[in-house]
């Protein structure tokens, strides 16, 4: 993964010093609440129901074992012994003391981590495919481009006070695993006729209150123009994005209100001034690529026989393999998911003890690297097949091997009423209830691939509008109700879910979900996934049953 140069280290150290001063000035009363708010957000600090929330950047999801140990240390020392992995590959602490945040940031800086621009109306952490560099369907490795974008966006002097937050995601594979079409800018690595790698650029996607699928603004952007083209889009957005209404301030609204053609014209006119001045050189790209060279794979990894024996003899291991590992481009290796969706833990949460153990496993079996996934799990990208059985056993002991990746209980869930002051309804509790209702693993595996996403309010932090099943908390006269949508997707066939009908009451939401799953089981064709069945059947069969029963 990327290793900091002296410059990188100086930059984050100087940022820590700056935020320390800002925090001191706030406590001295020299910065108003509003002024300090803008500054602390740009350093990852939200104030929520109980305490500040600190969001630490996981650059396109890559985290070293050393960094994982530091997160464990912070969870132990400054928080309540756990932290949370987010849908944008970041890490959140829920209970730090505001006055200690500068100290926490100084600790993070010692392991090349920071919280710069993880919230606020600025360019956020660039996200990517958790299988980057190891995926079998990869066109090219997105990580070097992510790092180039990370550097360009970090402390950009002109674009730190945008109309609203701005998120960029990059995918280098045939299958989009980074929800790129729901980002302000989505980039797909593509090859032109000559085999040259460039970018297909999407703009104006986003979730939240007004979910919109991004549109293609440039089918092929040459690699050397990456940064000048981003600059052109950002300048147009900064100058013309709406600032009168925060709900209409995302670039998706600017693109929609301007029209894609006109918007493209504006960007191209701006870009014409820039494109030749700031070219990204091939040397620079190669220099960054060197940081992401493949680790020293064992070329004989696939000659191991123990793996096949364990698989044949241990059903639980075989089940876990089927669900919690992904194919690897190198024969004899697999990518291993660490499920943060155990039935008894809030989705995405992990304890300090688990973190330390994960760091040890990564050191021993996966080149010392851990990745955060877009669905709030972790990944060990490079595990030899001979080690899979041992890794599995260790993960089982840690409660991190629930074989549910990509299934009904691998839910994305926001903090909801438990932590968030904006929530209309609880979400962690409902996730638990659904988990209890679906406690039969065979049943969950029979249902197969399913994405349930649940948010406690319209802001849609848990991407409910693109869940195959989306659950949205709404407030009805002070009571917690839930709006269900079906058929959303953040993959290649991006779609926004359709409303099933009126919201259902809290004591009926879990049975509504199980009813929906029953309708699927009864009506599915052979090999048909839930999403495919919804697309074929439409929502009516589901609707009839849910509202007939409840």
């Amino acid at each position, binding site marked *: 993964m990327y290793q900091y140069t002296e*410059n990188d280290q*100086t*930059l984050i150290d*100087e*940022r820590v*010093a*700056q935020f320390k001063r*800002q925090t001191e000035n706030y406590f001295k009363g020299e*910065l108003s609440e509003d*002024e300090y708010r*803008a*500054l602390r957000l740009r350093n990852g600090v939200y104030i929520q129901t109980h305490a500040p929330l600190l969001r630490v950047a996981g650059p396109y999801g890559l985290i070293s074992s050393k960094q994982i140990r530091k997160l464990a240390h912070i969870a132990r020392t400054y928080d309540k012994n756990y932290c949370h992995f987010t849908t944008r590959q970041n890490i959140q602490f829920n209970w730090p003391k505001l006055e200690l945040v500068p100290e926490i940031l100084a600790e993070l800086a010692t392991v090349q981590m920071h919280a710069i621009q993880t919230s606020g*109306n600025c360019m956020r952490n660039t996200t990517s495919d958790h299988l980057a560099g190891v995926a079998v369907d990869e066109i090219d490795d997105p990580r070097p481009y992510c790092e180039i974008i990370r*550097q*360009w966006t*970090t*402390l*950009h*002097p*002109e*674009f*730190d*006070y*945008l*109309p609203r937050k701005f998120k960029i995601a990059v995918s280098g594979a045939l299958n989009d695993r980074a929800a790129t079409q729901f980002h302000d800018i989505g980039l797909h690595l593509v090859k032109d006729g000559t085999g040259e790698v460039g970018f297909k650029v999407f703009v104006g996607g986003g979730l939240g209150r007004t979910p919109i699928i991004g549109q293609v603004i440039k089918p092929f952007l040459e690699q050397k123009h990456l*940064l000048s083209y981003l600059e052109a889009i950002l*300048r147009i957005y*900064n*100058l013309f994005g709406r*600032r009168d209404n925060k709900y209409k301030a995302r670039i998706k609204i600017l693109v929609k209100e301007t029209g894609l053609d006109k918007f493209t014209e504006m960007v191209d006119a701006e870009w014409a*001034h820039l494109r030749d001045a*700031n070219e990204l050189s091939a040397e620079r790209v190669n220099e960054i690529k060197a940081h992401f060279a493949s680790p020293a794979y064992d070329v004989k990894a696939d000659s191991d026989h123990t793996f096949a024996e364990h698989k044949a003899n241990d059903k639980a291991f075989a089940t876990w393999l089927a669900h919690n590992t992904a194919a690897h481009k190198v024969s004899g290796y697999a990518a291993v998911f660490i499920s943060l969706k155990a039935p008894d833990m809030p989705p995405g949460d992990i304890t300090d003890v688990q973190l330390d153990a994960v760091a040890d496993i990564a050191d021993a079996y996966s080149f010392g690297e851990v990745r955060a996934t877009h669905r709030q799990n972790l990944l060990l990208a490079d595990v030899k097949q001979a080690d899979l059985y041992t890794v599995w056993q260790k993960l089982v002991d840690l409660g991190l091997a629930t074989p549910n990746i990509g299934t009904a209980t691998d839910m994305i869930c926001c903090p909801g009423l438990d932590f968030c002051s904006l929530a209309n309804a609880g979400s962690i509790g409902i996730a638990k209830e659904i988990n209890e209702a679906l406690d039969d693993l065979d049943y969950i595996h029979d249902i197969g691939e399913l994405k349930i996403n649940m948010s406690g309010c319209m802001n849609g932090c848990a991407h409910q509008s693109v869940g195959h099943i989306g659950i949205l908390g709404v407030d009805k006269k002070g009571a917690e109700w839930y709006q269900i949508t079906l058929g959303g997707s953040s993959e290649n066939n991006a779609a926004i879910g359709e409303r099933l009908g009126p919201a259902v009451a809290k004591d009926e939401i879990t049975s509504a979900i199980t009813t929906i799953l029953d309708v699927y089981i009864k009506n599915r064709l052979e090999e048909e996934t839930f999403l495919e069945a919804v697309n074929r059947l439409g929502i009516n069969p589901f609707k009839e049953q849910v509202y007939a029963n409840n």
Partner: protein
Amino acid sequence: MQIIKDKQRVDNTWQFIADEESLVAGDITVSLARWLQDKATLIAHSGKVGLRLKASDTVADFAEDLGHIKLVELNFADFADGRSFSQAWLLRGRYHYQDEIRAIGHYLPEQVFYLSRVGVNAYASDKTSALDSVLNNLNDFTVKYQPSII
């Protein structure tokens, strides 16, 4: 009143002329509307002329007049309105404006490092104590990741 200009405390020598006010001798600042309306008179003015820009003003509207304009004030009504940053960048980067660009109004001394990078070289403030912070914070970072004006 003092301001910071090119990292030095200096006296402000410019006089604010409201839209309905008549011109006075010496160096004056006027709004963009006034400039566009009274351009000929203002070009003939004996002192120097500066423009006061709002975040919503468009730089292209007066870009061809920049040879006559010796100061551009970026007026922050709201420190979070980032359009002023792009205005400064356009003045320097696109139109190669060489004279003073001054931040005024409700920007934060905490923002001056970024402002300096997009081409702002002068800072006014109602609070004299803020000027010390400005001077100090101009040195917040010794490294940078991307090109801008500086």
